[in-house]
């Protein structure tokens, strides 16, 4: 007798139809409301592509120019919509090219289902053409993975894949399907998965702990909120705002928490972490109650743990039990979805304000403004800064754009200065720091938010890692706006070399091609700005365009990003220069 390990949703009709495994995959995707997938064909996945051809009016497949691009596009789509992104590839190199995207989605909790073709069942393990052990390879970077070797497994496994990818702390799932299973015919019927006995994605917050948290917050003199991706994933934006306003608590964000709260909200005090704002970092070590919501105390956020918020009582709202006490010991840990937890907490919170404490953040901001921000946003020197480009994008988009960033100096500058009014608008590779993320992610973001402007801000290094996706943009007429901030260097590494390796610029100087010509070669309208006087009109022209648009801005070659917490130092040791 089969033991019950999963539960399925009840279906009204039991209409089983006899179809191939490949066709079943399409029906599973449609049943999960997927109508857009990214991928790249190849031998072992051809039966599925044949079905994609037949179903193209219902399920749109976007051909990226590299499988890594397909994963990042699926991630961009997932991050902007909150839905599961889907990428598909063939066996062997097709599958291994997904690995970076899987790792990125795993560490940044992004719901994604990747489907790979595999050599037929009878050839498994024989070193067949384009065979690779993608289950073995992807295990550490997936929330779950599974190899399907017969067609009859497809409905149940696909249903589990979607359930696992999007529930609890979301993450990537890889389903590997042998070619024989794609050809085999079987009686297909589908119902969604609603529970798995070994998986508890939604722990219920404990009331006693909520009460302890409320007591700490109500009695705090210098409370401080740090919020992360969990607020966005848990759809807790309104609850966060209500808590901040009711108790008058200054709130700062991690890089993935950005856009969960209006950047212009008076109690939004900025970014924590290595290149975050001065006050949010230095005052971490002055607060009396630290309220962490949907964040995981990443080392880039905390700096040295030995000197991180030691004076504070720590309240940790978190859905993943493995994150509790992993890096920072919580005095009160509330396991659960951020929205449910905050809904329970809010009625217990007393109205309050902490103006004197909030003023300390304002004072720090003034200091940072004089030392850093003024020069970044309104420079008086000749060379263009990355900050002034971001500021022009803010102005031209009225803070309404989706900003997709790559990794490095431009990412830190964009996240520091980009303004957001709407949640799910900041898309970046935070945990993994994947150069090459932004261009394909922007494709997915635009396709997921067709009514919004999507601006990809990329460095000259990262742009060349997935530059081939310009072809995807052209072929699909995806109206993304691409801004390459060209400083002729791998800027962040160069900055570290300057500060910590006595300016030995080992392999960080880039002799770049003519990017405008390259973009034009892909038939994308392109402009270059070398002079400040041309910047505003160029950004405005870009934002006004209804087509894809490429804008290269030559920025100062050796600018550094400040403030900065040197690697391994304390948040108190943040440097303004």
């Amino acid at each position, binding site marked *: 007798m089969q*033991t019950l*390990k999963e539960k399925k949703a009840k279906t009204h009709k039991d209409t089983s139809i006899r179809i191939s495994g490949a066709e079943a995959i399409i029906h599973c995707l449609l049943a999960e409301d997927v109508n857009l997938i990214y991928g790249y064909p190849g031998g072992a996945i051809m039966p599925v592509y044949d079905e994609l051809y037949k179903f193209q009016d219902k399920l749109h497949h976007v051909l990226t120019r590299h499988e890594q691009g397909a994963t990042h596009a699926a991630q961009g789509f997932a991050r902007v919509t909150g839905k599961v992104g889907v990428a598909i590839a063939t066996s062997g190199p097709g599958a291994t090219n997904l690995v970076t995207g899987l790792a990125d989605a795993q560490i940044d909790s992004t719901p994604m289902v990747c489907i790979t073709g595999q050599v037929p069942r009878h050839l498994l393990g024989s070193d067949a053409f384009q065979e690779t052990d993608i289950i073995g390879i992807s295990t550490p970077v997936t929330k779950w993975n599974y190899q399907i070797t017969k067609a009859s497994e497809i409905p149940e496994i696909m249903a589990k894949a979607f359930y696992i990818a999007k529930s609890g702390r979301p993450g990537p799932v890889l389903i590997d399907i042998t070619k024989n299973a794609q050809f085999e015919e079987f009686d297909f019927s589908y119902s969604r998965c609603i529970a*798995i006995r*070994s998986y508890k994605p939604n722990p219920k917050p404990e009331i006693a702990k909520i009460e302890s948290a409320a007591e700490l917050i109500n009695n705090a003199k210098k409370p401080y909120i740090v919020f992360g991706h969990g607020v966005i994933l848990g759809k807790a934006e309104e609850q966060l705002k209500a808590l901040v306003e009711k108790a008058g608590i200054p709130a700062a964000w991690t890089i993935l928490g950005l856009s969960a709260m209006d950047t212009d909200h008076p109690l939004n005090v900025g970014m924590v972490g290595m290149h975050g704002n001065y006050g949010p970092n230095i005052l971490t070590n002055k607060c009396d109650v630290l309220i962490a919501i949907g964040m995981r105390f990443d080392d880039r956020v905390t700096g040295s743990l030995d000197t991180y918020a030691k004076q504070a009582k720590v309240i940790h709202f978190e859905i993943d039990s*493995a994150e509790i*006490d992993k890096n920072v010991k919580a005095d009160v840990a509330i396991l659960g979805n951020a929205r449910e937890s905050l809904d329970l907490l809010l009625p217990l919170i007393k109205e309050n304000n902490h103006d004197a404490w909030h003023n300390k953040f304002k004072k720090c901001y003034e200091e940072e403004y004089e030392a850093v921000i003024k020069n970044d946003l309104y420079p008086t020197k000749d060379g263009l800064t990355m900050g002034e480009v971001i500021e022009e994008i803010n102005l031209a988009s009225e803070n309404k754009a989706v900003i997709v960033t790559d990794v490095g100096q431009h990412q830190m500058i964009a996240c520091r200065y980009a303004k957001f009014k709407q949640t799910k608008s900041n898309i970046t590779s935070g945990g993994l720091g994947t150069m090459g993320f932004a261009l394909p992610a922007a494709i997915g973001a635009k396709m997921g938010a067709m009514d919004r402007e999507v601006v990809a801000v990329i460095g000259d290094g990262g742009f060349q890692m997935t530059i081939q996706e310009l072809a995807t943009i052209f072929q699909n007429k995806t109206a993304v706006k691409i801004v390459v901030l060209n400083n002729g260097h791998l800027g962040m590494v160069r900055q570290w070399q300057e500060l910590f390796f006595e300016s030995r610029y080992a392999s960080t100087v880039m002799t770049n091609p003519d990017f405008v010509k390259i973009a034009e070669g892909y038939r994308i309208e392109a402009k270059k700005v070398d002079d400040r006087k041309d910047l505003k009109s160029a950004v405005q022209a870009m934002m006004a365009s209804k087509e894809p648009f490429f804008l290269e801005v030559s920025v100062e070659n050796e600018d550094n990003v400040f403030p900065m917490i040197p690697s391994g130092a304390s948040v108190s040791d943040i440097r303004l220069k």
Partner: protein
Amino acid sequence: MEKKWFTISVYSENNVGMLNRISGIFLKRHINIESLNVSKSEIEHVSKFTIVINTTEDWTRKIVAQIERQIEVLKTFYHTDEETIYQESALFKIASHLLFDEPQIQNIISGSKSKIVTVSREYFVLAKTGRRHEIDEMHDQLEPYGIMQFVRSGRITVTKSTMPITPIINEFHQS
């Protein structure tokens, strides 16, 4: 924090790839698995991994949390040696002529509480169950006379306290 021996008990679905997924968590933290045993458990269709590591309790707790996060893991526990009853098994293959040439061997066998599993003209096989140090002691005693083959199993453990898996499964069936 002090390093100690910890026994981790993982109750999981019996699926292909589980061993890889679980062992990867130790690999990621650069922790050597000192002993590993996988068997059926007291619950039908549920596997039990018994893993022994030598590290701090803090790391053990974090590893356990990361194992438990795996989708097909039902529940994971960790215990110190004091909290468990544990045994290992070993087999010794020894040349039969030694029984006659080296009378001391008979004393070792009778003192070791081991069992003779099989005897042939060429060799005999001893099975010994006990704590690691008891098996090591027997090994050290026999080694000077020549051991043809030796093998020792992973640690198997039951705990003094309960490991409540059944309620988890019942809760799922009732919900």
